[in-house]
């Protein structure tokens, strides 16, 4: 076997006229921590559902750990662990019983199961809470248990669909640590979906940016951000001064791109060595009579990358295009709390 964990070939999913996933071809290496990044409704979860045999693709195909998702469905399921986006525990069972059920379903014998339950509970710090009912778990604890469960049977590939959706910042941080730890310590190939830029940036070796069912960019997070190639300087000037400012800095050939936002009354500049350029920019702006309210600079984020490739911000896409889905998700999530 080669070093490929997952290979998809023109994977496609249509629901009637709507194409949720549009000829996605990608390859994920063994041991990789791979992210599918995109707004809600971009098709990330649908890709996961197809790769985990929950949905049959309407076109194309894929191999997971060398098994075809259409033909060797049981073999695929034997190789993977899945943490679904929505809760999927039996709330009338304890944490330990949920794990035990899982172990049995994957044919683990009693001793192996007992040892493994202890191990994964330890990994997610739930040893002390193992024997209380799931309905008494907090959202974060429940999520951690689901991650532990996904690891129970030593899967080759672990799929995590929005692992930190709806969780508070601290719990999110914990879960990131767990994901990294199991990727390193257990050598599990991890494929996760997220619409949190910082999550993909912090966790993933490589990221595929998905928009409207297509991969618009795929590379390491570093290389993706290098595509922006520079620092981003944001000047808040007020709408009436925006054009004046753009004119004033048009003479600097080191400004690689300029974006105006009427809404936030700002101008964004991509430049190299931003910290050294700020004085020059401010000086020429003052000479041109532009009133600058504030200046800020940040290193490129995946948000900027997403903006570059799709021409929109990931948060805008969320609020308009996939508004209904967001509502559904938050409804599902409220149960956890």
């Amino acid at each position, binding site marked *: 076997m080669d070093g490929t964990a997952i290979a998809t070939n023109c994977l496609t999913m249509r629901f009637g006229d709507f194409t949720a996933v549009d000829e996605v071809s990608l390859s994920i290496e063994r041991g990789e921590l791979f992210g599918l990044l995109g707004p809600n409704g971009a098709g990330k979860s649908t890709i996961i559902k197809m790769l985990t045999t*929950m949905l049959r693709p309407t076109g194309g195909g894929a191999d997971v750990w060398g098994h075809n998702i259409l033909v060797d469905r*049981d073999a695929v399921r034997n190789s993977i662990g*899945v943490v679904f986006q929505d*809760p999927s525990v*039996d709330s009338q069972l304890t944490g330990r019983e949920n794990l035990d059920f899982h172990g*049995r379903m994957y044919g683990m014998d009693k001793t192996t199961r007992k040892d493994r339950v202890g191990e994964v509970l330890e990994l997610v710090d739930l040893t002390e809470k193992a024997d209380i009912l799931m309905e008494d778990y907090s959202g974060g604890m429940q999520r951690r248990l689901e991650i532990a469960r996904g690891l129970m049977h030593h899967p080759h590939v672990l799929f995590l669909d929005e692992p930190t959706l709806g969780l508070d910042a601290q719990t999110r941080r914990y879960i990131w640590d767990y994901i990294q730890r199991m990727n390193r310590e257990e050598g599990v190939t991890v494929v996760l979906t997220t619409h949190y830029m910082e999550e993909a940036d912090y966790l993933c070796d490589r990221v595929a940016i998905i928009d409207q069912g297509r991969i618009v960019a795929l590379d390491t997070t570093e290389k993706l951000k290098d595509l922006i190639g520079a620092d981003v300087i944001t000047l808040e000037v007020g709408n009436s001064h925006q054009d004046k400012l753009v004119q004033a800095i048009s003479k600097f050939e080191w400004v690689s791109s300029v974006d105006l936002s009427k809404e936030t009354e700002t101008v964004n500049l991509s430049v190299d060595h931003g910290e050294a350029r700020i004085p020059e920019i401010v000086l020429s702006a003052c000479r041109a009579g532009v009133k600058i309210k504030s200046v800020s600079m940040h290193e490129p984020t995946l948000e900027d990358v997403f903006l570059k490739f799709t021409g929109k911000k990931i948060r805008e896409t969320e609020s308009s295009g996939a508004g209904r889905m967001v509502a559904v998700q938050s409804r599902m999530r409220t149960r956890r709390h």
Partner: protein
Amino acid sequence: MARLDLYAIYTLWLREMIRFFRLKSRVLGSLAPPFFFLAFLGFGFRTAAMPELPEGADYISYLAPGIIGMTLLFSATFGGLSMLWDREFGFLREIMVAPVSRLSIVMGRTAGGVTTAVMQGLIILIPGFLMGLEVSGFGGFLLSLVFMVLIATTFNSLGLAFASRMKDMSGFSLIMNFMVFPLFLLSGALFPIENLPIWLRSLSYLDPLTYGVDGLRGSLVGINTFPLIFDLVVLAICCALALGLGAYLFEISDVD
């Protein structure tokens, strides 16, 4: 995918058992209606002359097997429909993503649902005994267990079949009120169906529970309209058909 995974079937059965013994209030809740039916109808009609009742049979002996049938019908259907809860709360995905054939999943769920239903049926025997029900013999009791399993399997499978076709839980009360309740009333659990007008009686003959209740009554107290072997065969055929239908509809259903 016709592979049967006994360990997975056992696992799913075990889960139902844990839930059954844990959710005591739910069990109590589902036992209350048949208990009240038994107690109030049993006492209330104790001295009433029920037409078509065989010579020398008292109403409580007639009623108790019917109420056991009712208990089995309701709890088994509910057990089959409980897949809706698993879907709603996401646990169905956990089951479906495991490397276990769907047939094994159906078998495991059915085994669990049937066991809990039969246990409830047996519990209802106890107030029956207290009210004067006399079982004809141990052989009859064993035969009644066979009938209980067949009744429970039939309606558990029908519940599963419905649940496989339903997207959410909105149809649940519709099924309970418009399918399960008429099936109960038509089955002759409360009164001899000979008292019904002919057009209603013919509906009774289409109700699998009619043969189940008749079989229970015959095996437990020796009162039966049809020959027991006829009850057994008809019910077994219904059971096989329902099981096949439930397994097929579950097999082709979507997880999401």
